[in-house]
């Protein structure tokens, strides 16, 4: 069920109503029921995948949890007779056992994920179709990349001893399948999300109203902007658009993906807020970033955090890496010191790449990001020197220049998503330097992308609005809180106008085509 379907809205409305009417003890069960329904809607055959994750996660975390408990009990009991060394060896032994359970669980789950993703690409796709697994080739089970990572993060946390395992399998199932974040995240941490899911929530008018406002804003971005510009993005992928056309594609794609992804997240977070559940932010106006590291702290934050906590840090502070660091330092000096970080970065971005898709272009996408991060890190002293000399940073325009530079760079990296054929991508990138066809802006080509002049005007106005709102948020914080201080009538009027704008200008439904209504035969 898509967020933009009428069914989803009706579903969410009904849920909200029931949620605050039933006894608070039952709220989490209602959420679980709703999540199951949501998942079943996508297709019954996919339910088995999420069940595998729930069951294996439940088993592994509870076994590890019990072993840790036994360990603590044992140490407490024999505190007097155990030396520090004894304690260490005992703990290490328990940890070795735990690790087996952890790895078992991770292997099972990531194999399922790899299988599901792998069957989408050739030659495995053809093999699956031959063996009757063809339903798996139609698309990924709903939200599998998201709930899988969220659950595995939880298993690792239990292994590390930072959270206690959930004993109630149904509560765990809710944590895994909580439907608002099933489609596109955010990837929440167990310690933050699970207690909220199961806590009783009383109706709080302000929270519900804020949540709904945020949903409305999300729908505006998704329906008015993302779904409208999607046509043009698809058209610009056509082979005739090289040079400036490619640059345009990268910008259009940036608009589409931003409006779509942040809009969807707004709907997710907004709905959750209306339910009394706070989810982590996933975006903080990423296009205002001035460098790539900042960009990745502001774009798809929860994925970045996940990668940092479970891939980047564990690799970079592992014993072999520390050893490597020591030896490399002797040989290469300061660069050697950073070597482990770079190795870990490459690994992290490789995983991030294949998480997005098992095709070469996503791996290239990850590596490009990694390359620029490392590059900017290595060049940092150079920059410092440069700025020490020229004092550009004091200039008012320099900040905007940095933002624009970052925006264009990230656009060009991101657009590789659209080209499964990596060669085609490089060809287009090359054409940036050879083809100067900026004239397509006014030679009528823009009108052949499936958008009318009115569409462009809507898009333009909507983007101005989104930009202004972002600017206010960047400078003054929450716009909703700001509006709250204004007269009720003004706030209501603004929200109503926004609502009407979504209804009238959203790209949804069958679309009115007058010629269909012209009577012609029966």
């Amino acid at each position, binding site marked *: 069920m898509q967020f933009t379907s009428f069914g989803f809205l009706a579903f969410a409305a009904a849920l909200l109503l029931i949620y605050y009417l039933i006894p608070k003890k039952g709220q989490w069960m209602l959420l679980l029921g709703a999540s199951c329904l949501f998942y079943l809607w996508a297709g019954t055959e996919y339910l088995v995948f999420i069940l595998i994750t729930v069951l294996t996660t439940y088993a592994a975390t509870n076994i590890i949890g019990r072993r840790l408990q036994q360990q603590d009990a044992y140490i407490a009991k024999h505190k007097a007779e155990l030396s520090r060394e004894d304690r260490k060896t005992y703990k290490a032994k328990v940890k070795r056992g735990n690790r087996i359970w952890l790895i078992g669980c991770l292997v099972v789950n990531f194999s399922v994920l790899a299988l599901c993703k792998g069957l989408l690409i050739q030659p495995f796709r053809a093999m699956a179709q031959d063996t009757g697994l063809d339903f798996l080739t139609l698309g*990924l089970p709903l939200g599998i990349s998201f709930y899988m990572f969220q659950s595995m993060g939880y298993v690792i946390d239990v292994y590390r001893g930072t959270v206690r395992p959930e004993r109630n399998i149904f509560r765990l199932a809710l944590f895994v399948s909580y439907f608002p974040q099933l489609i596109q995240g955010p990837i929440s941490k167990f310690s933050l999300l699970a207690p909220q899911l199961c806590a009783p929530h009383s109706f709080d008018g302000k929270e519900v109203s804020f949540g709904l406002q945020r949903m409305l804003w999300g729908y505006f971005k998704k329906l008015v902007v993302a779904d409208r510009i999607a*046509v043009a993005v698809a058209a610009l992928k056509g082979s005739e658009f090289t040079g400036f056309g490619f640059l345009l594609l990268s910008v259009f794609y940036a608009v589409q*993906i931003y409006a*779509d992804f942040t809009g969807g997240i707004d709907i997710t977070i907004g709905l959750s807020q209306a339910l009394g559940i706070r989810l982590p932010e996933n975006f903080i106006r990423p296009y205002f970033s001035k460098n790539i590291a900042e960009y990745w702290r502001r774009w798809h934050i929860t994925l970045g955090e996940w990668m940092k906590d479970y891939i980047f840090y564990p690799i970079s502070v592992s014993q072999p890496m520390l050893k490597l660091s020591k030896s490399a330092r002797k040989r290469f000096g300061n660069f050697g010191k950073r070597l482990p970080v770079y190795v870990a970065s490459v690994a992290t971005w490789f995983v991030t790449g294949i998480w997005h*898709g098992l095709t070469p272009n996503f791996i290239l996408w990850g590596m490009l990001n990694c390359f620029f991060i490392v590059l900017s890190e290595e060049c940092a002293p150079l920059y410092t020197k440069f700025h020490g000399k020229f004092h550009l940073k004091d200039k008012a325009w320099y900040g905007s220049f940095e933002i624009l530079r970052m925006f264009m760079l990230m656009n060009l990296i991101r657009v590789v998503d659209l080209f499964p054929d990596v060669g085609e991508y490089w060809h287009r990138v090359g054409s940036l330097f050879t083809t100067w066809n900026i004239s397509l802006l006014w030679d009528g080509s823009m009108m052949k992308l499936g958008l009318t002049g009115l569409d462009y005007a809507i898009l333009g106005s909507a983007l101005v609005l989104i930009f202004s709102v972002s600017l206010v948020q960047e400078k003054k914080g929450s716009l909703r809180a700001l509006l709250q201080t204004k007269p009720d009538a003004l706030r209501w009027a603004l929200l109503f106008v926004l609502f009407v704008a979504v209804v009238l200008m959203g790209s949804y439904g069958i679309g009115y085509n007058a010629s269909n209504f012209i009577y012609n*035969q029966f």
Partner: protein
Amino acid sequence: MKKYIALLLCLAMALSLAACSPSENGANETTAALPNDTTPSQTQPQQETTPAEKGFTFTAGGVEIAMKAEASPILAAMGEPKSYTEETSCAFTGLDKTYFFGSFYLNTYPQGDKDHVFAAWFADDTVTTAEGIYIGSTQAAVEAAYGTDGYNGSNAYIINKGESKLTIILTDGVVSSIVYDAVFE
């Protein structure tokens, strides 16, 4: 008028949202496709595109007649039809035209500013399919030419190939009608 309304709406929308028309068709088709980057769960596999297979044809008046082909060369070759009707087109805007050439009927639909073949059916046994079947052929001959896959179990063979559908209807074990249709997605 349109401009006034646009202007009015513009004013009404204090948020400086310009009033414009959403594109009618295209937008809806793509709403389902969320970007891969953000939502791997929605990743759609690349569709394999097989080159279009050639559809069923038959030959009359020295021209090969294929579905969706442009009608004008066929009409030129066939000369004056014995009968001709036209009616407002149902699925397309414009006129559906039906020609009768004595041995077969030809039905066309407009696309762009040209007519294309929408359907054709035989009227007598002077025309044969490219596979040699005509009105009066036996069921055995049909099966020899087209196999048994398209048999509907009672009175007809319905076979799809490329952008065409061939329907052969039998009465008492003998071919009584042969119909070609253009196939649209």
